[in-house]
């Protein structure tokens, strides 16, 4: 491989030149005029549509090569075509978050002299899953191949699949227990893994010997390489048709057009100004097995976000005031943060025009060094970075939505995404073999409400707009558990005039194994990690796990007695406790315990979205239908929304409009009687703040934010009229 001629590509110089031109002109690669677009707009648009078709077609083909239900069923894959400098020109549907992270990977190789060693040649295959090079988390493994035409590097084709098993300290891909990089699993760090369109045998052997379930990763590699080759050959044929010079120019104009379209869209849909919001995340691991004493076992993170929309149409997001990185798996790299921005923009603003890296270039992220958004230590773990990324970008969606409401585009306003906790597993399969897998039905949470309607039930996640929970039968083929329930969780959407989308809960019976490790990740404890909007409430996103070990379920089945199919609606006594005998377990935070075995029962619930608007304005008729269909309980309809329900002759709920009106008038009067002026509340709370009369984790959160951010310190001090530093960091220099 090292016996090579000197590189004639000079791609690093080209990348530097491209960045200089952008800086000097403000336009991508110095493209100040869209000449080809102006010459023949139809040809321009047609070509981009063709490129997009190449991407969509390649992804669909590749999904059929994969063995992973995550890729085949749920669609956890994306492909894209890039310029020689690594900027995305066109992309497929799917997990679009990775279109820009892959761009970072290509640029990283270029900057690090890959054209000299290990060389960039026609037929080469490069892979990466290192988030500090360019991905989100270790299971997001990406492959890229260079596209050569007439001996010249003319672009790249790239593909990402989310792997269901990454070989980390706990089974699955989102390795919950990883506290440092060294426990996250198998890393492939911008590595040449194939030549002449063939994946190297030694790379496959490494995968086979370091993963619990290599069939997923290895066949996904083949799927990705096939899609890359497919796109490469399509692009080469296109260049034969339109000419190399035209291609080199038009591919850059596509990106500049994307950049301009994003700016125009911002000016069209939003209102300039400063927008602010925040959310929180709680992590509880004290006393749990496996956690090394590297940091605080229980912690609370704040995620404040300030978004500025300038009159130029630029969107600037600033995370100042958030928390430091930690010894946990939820840190994120700038690549992941970029990816979160990209996938959010593609869903909410880029519904017209060309979608590519140009949109991202019209934005700016301010990621304070040393925080979880931009760690100053590259050995930190990022295996479950979605845990913080999803809530943070849920805030971004609410901030954007405030601007849509201001401008009148209420149909685009959306309360935002939520975390969707993941369950992962490993051990001995129902076939008696070693196995490991992330269960990906989490890709179908409830969405936040819209400003004109309820959120989507069990049909949305932020990272992949084509949400899919996968078929039960497919999941059962891949794990030693069978479903005894998959149910809508009543009241799991945040309450509001329009409620958040509801989530679902799965209940499984462990079957045909004596060793099943179950692990969960990415769900907040003790705090909501989402929010409502314009008077709507957050969704109840701090759920606990419930399981029964050594249950009597087989005896009950033998007797044809009722089984538990979900946890029910009594938070103090679940259906499992009501119906099943055995050792009942209720656990807060990540589920890390001894292995399960046949006869155990386990439940896992996902999250609903936040609500929009005042609950007292909710439509009583719609609410009656919600109660009838199990999305709301009657208790919630009356107690939260003030809606009185009668029953018709068949026992179905019917809204009593007169009684509702009376009850709501009473609730409104009670509200006004209970409420006090904010100024009074501030005066009372100020005393508490002065004494730092808070839980240790809350105090620690304030101290950490104050240490990292002078702005947070100033704003906190100004708001409460106190010296925040002396309260939370006594003894520190002023």
């Amino acid at each position: 491989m090292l016996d090579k001629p000197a590189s004639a590509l000079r791609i690093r110089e080209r990348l530097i030149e491209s960045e200089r031109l952008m800086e000097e002109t403000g336009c991508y690669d110095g493209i100040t005029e869209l000449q080809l677009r102006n010459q023949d707009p139809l040809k321009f648009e047609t070509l981009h549509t063709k490129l997009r078709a190449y991407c969509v077609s390649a992804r669909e083909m590749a999904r059929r090569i994969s063995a992973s239900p995550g890729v085949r069923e749920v669609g956890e894959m994306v492909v894209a075509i890039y310029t020689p400098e690594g900027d995305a020109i066109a992309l497929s549907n799917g997990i679009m978050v990775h279109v820009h992270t892959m761009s970072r990977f290509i640029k990283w190789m270029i900057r690090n002299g890959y054209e000299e060693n290990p060389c960039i040649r026609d037929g080469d295959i490069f892979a990466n899953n290192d988030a500090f090079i360019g991905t989100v988390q270790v299971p997001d493994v990406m492959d890229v191949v260079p596209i050569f035409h007439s001996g010249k590097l003319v672009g790249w084709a790239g593909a990402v699949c989310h792997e269901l098993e990454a070989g980390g300290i706990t089974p699955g891909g989102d390795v919950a227990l990883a506290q440092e990089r060294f426990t996250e699993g198998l890393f492939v760090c911008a590595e040449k893994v194939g030549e002449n369109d063939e994946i190297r045998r030694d790379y496959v052997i490494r995968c086979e010997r370091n993963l619990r379930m290599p069939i997923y990763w290895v066949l996904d590699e083949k799927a990705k390489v096939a899609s890359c080759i497919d796109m490469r050959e399509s692009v080469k044929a296109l260049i034969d048709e339109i000419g190399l010079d035209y291609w080199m120019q038009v591919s850059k104009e596509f990106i500049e057009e994307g950049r301009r379209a994003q700016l125009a869209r911002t000016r069209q849909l939003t209102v300039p100004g400063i927008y602010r919001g925040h959310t929180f995340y709680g992590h509880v691991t004290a006393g749990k097995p496996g956690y090394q004493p590297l940091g605080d076992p229980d912690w609370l993170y704040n995620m404040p976000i300030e978004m500025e929309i300038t009159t130029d149409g630029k969107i600037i997001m600033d995370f100042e005031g958030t928390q430091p990185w930690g010894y946990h798996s939820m840190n994120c790299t700038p690549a992941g943060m970029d990816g979160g921005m990209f996938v959010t923009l593609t869903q909410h603003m880029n519904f017209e025009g060309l979608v590519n890296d140009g949109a991202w270039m019209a934005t700016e992220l301010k990621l304070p060094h040393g925080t979880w958004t931009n760690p100053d230590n590259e050995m930190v773990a990022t295996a479950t970075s979605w845990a913080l990324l999803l809530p943070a970008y849920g805030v971004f969606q609410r901030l954007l939505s405030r601007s849509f409401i201001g401008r009148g585009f209420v149909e685009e306003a959306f309360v935002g995404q939520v975390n969707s906790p993941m369950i992962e597993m490993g051990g001995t399969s129902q076939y008696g073999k070693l196995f490991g897998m992330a269960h990906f039905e989490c890709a179908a949470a409830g969405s936040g409400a819209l400003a004109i309607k309820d959120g989507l039930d069990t049909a949305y996640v932020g990272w992949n707009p084509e949400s899919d929970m996968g078929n039960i039968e497919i999941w059962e083929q891949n794990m030693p558990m069978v479903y005894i329930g998959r149910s809508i969780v009543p009241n799991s959407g945040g309450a509001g005039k329009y409620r958040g989308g509801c989530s679902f809960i799965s209940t499984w019976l462990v079957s045909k194994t004596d060793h099943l490790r179950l692990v969960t990740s990415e769900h907040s404890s003790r705090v909501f990690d989402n929010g409502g909007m314009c008077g709507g409430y957050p969704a109840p996103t701090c759920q606990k796990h419930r399981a029964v070990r050594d249950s009597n379920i087989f005896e009950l089945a033998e007797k044809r007695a009722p089984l538990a199919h979900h946890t029910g609606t009594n938070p103090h006594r679940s259906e499992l406790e009501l119906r099943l005998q055995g050792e009942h377990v209720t656990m807060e935070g990540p589920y890390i315990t001894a292995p399960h075995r046949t006869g155990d029962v386990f439940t896992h619930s996902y999250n609903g979205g936040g609500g929009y608007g005042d609950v007292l304005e909710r439509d009583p008729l719609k609410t009656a239908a919600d109660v009838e269909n199990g999305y709301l309980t009657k208790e919630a309809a009356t107690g939260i929304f003030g809606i009185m329900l009668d029953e018709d002759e068949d026992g179905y709920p019917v809204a009593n409009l007169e009684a509702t009106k009376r009850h709501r008038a009473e609730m409104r009067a009670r509200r006004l009687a209970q409420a006090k002026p904010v100024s009074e509340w501030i005066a009372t709370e100020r005393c508490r703040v002065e004494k730092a009369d808070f839980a240790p984790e809350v105090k620690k959160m304030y101290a950490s934010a104050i240490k990292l951010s002078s702005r947070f310190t100033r704003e906190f001090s100004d708001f409460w009229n106190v010296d925040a530093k002396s309260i939370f960091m006594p003894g520190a220099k002023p």
Partner: protein
Amino acid sequence: MTSYSKEVIADLVAGTLPWPQTRRVMSAYKDDDRFFKYVAVLQDRVGWKDPILLPVSDHLFICQSGDERVTRCECGHSFGDYRKNWKLKASIIVRNTEETLREIYPNSDIPDPQWMEIREFICPECGTMHEVEAAAPGYPIVHDFQPDLEGFYREWLGKPL
């Protein structure tokens, strides 16, 4: 250029536009004349005459009130200068006990009140709940939105404020 009647915008804002039609609005090119029609719809809805300059929430509007620009509730209550955080002039209900959180979350696990509270910001006159914050105890009240009103009208709408 896409354009809709004021009636269609009114139905859209009220959430009463039939879903197939709403879908078409969502999928179509956006209507560049939306803002002023939207404001006209809202102006018809409120019971006061001060011209609405910018809606900032479901029932909160920045409006021109004599020489001042204020944030006003749909009921007419004024929260004062639009550049200041309207929440500071609102009324508040704080849910920071298991009992009060349970009223909103009757069937699920609830946050630890030591870690998180819910703050409901209410119009002191009509009792409309304008915003809900979920925050750690002691967290400063957030100022949601400071619009660049002058820049918006001058540079984006091309009209004097």
